[in-house]
């Protein structure tokens, strides 16, 4: 439609980061609410095949591809919200910085069968301190196998960080997790 062209040039975007360990359900979570099929964007990364000071670095296999999945939600006519899943491999921390920069907020998805795998992601956002985040237990089988208080304890989660549950396959659960995240971000704003 010709009439939307000028409006489109004013379009705005914002992003939320969905973080967590490999296999924790980040892509499922994004797919459950995205209005487009989850897309994957690739970044080329140097591979640590050789020590940094090895002169042969440039000749061997020096790169690998790291995928970041994303989806999208139209918030209203002028604003689109993008959900970016972090690369599963923890060693690509510098890509997390790329994704986190300018993010409205973040969710760390956790799997109670492997809580330890979630620690780096939680520590990452705690250390940054500039991005509001919540922790969401993915209910893989639709059921919570541990009390949330136990999970909070095991994760050593600060009292100020909300901890909730969601079935990453369920659109309503995902929507509610995102709403809770935005409410948390609002609560963290200075009152005036």
């Amino acid at each position, binding site marked *: 439609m010709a009439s939307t062209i000028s409006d*489109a*040039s*004013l*379009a*705005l*975007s*914002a*992003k939320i980061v969905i973080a967590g360990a490999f296999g924790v359900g980040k892509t499922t979570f994004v797919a459950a*609410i995205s209005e487009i099929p989850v*897309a*994957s*964007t*690739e*970044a*080329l*990364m*140097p*591979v*640590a095949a*050789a*020590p*940094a000071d090895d002169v042969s*670095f*440039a000749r061997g296999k*020096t*790169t690998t*591809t790291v995928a*970041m999945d*994303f989806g999208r*939600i*139209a*918030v*209203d006519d002028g*604003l*689109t*919200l*993008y959900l*970016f899943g972090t690369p599963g491999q923890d*060693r*690509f*921390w*510098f890509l997390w910085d*790329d*994704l986190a*920069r*300018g993010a*409205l*907020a973040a969710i760390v998805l956790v799997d109670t069968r492997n809580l330890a795998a979630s620690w780096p992601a939680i520590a990452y956002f705690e250390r940054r301190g500039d991005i*509001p985040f919540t922790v969401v237990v993915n209910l893989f089988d639709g059921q919570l196998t541990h009390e949330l208080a136990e999970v909070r304890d095991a994760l050593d989660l600060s009292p100020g960080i909300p901890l909730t549950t969601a079935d990453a396959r369920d659109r309503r659960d995902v*929507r509610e997790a*995102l*709403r809770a995240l*935005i*409410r948390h*971000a*609002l609560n963290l*704003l200075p009152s005036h």
Partner: protein
Amino acid sequence: MTRTYALHAPRRPSRVRPYGITRGRTAADRFLGVERLISTVEFDPQRVLGMLPETAAVYEACRYPRTIAELATGLALPLGVIRVLVGDLAAVGRVRIHPPAADIPDRHLLERVLRGLDNL
């Protein structure tokens, strides 16, 4: 065998072959978030003729606003390459880099997102 983790490896993507498209330049000094929208300014098919294929592809794709991430996916190029191409096009006024929704997330923006989620 000594294991060296990626964090300690050189992070100079300019050595990577696809960066030949960008003549070795990287996007380090013009960071564009993966979510930033880009749109073509007054698309003119004549301009495509003098462009590198990848540059032309970005120029054409952004007739409708697209994010850095969507460009990387749609054109099957790494994010770093897209950032350089977009930076070049923006420098000569061929594309416009949309401002971020907010430099610092503010109440207005968060409430707008919340309303959008409520309406889903």
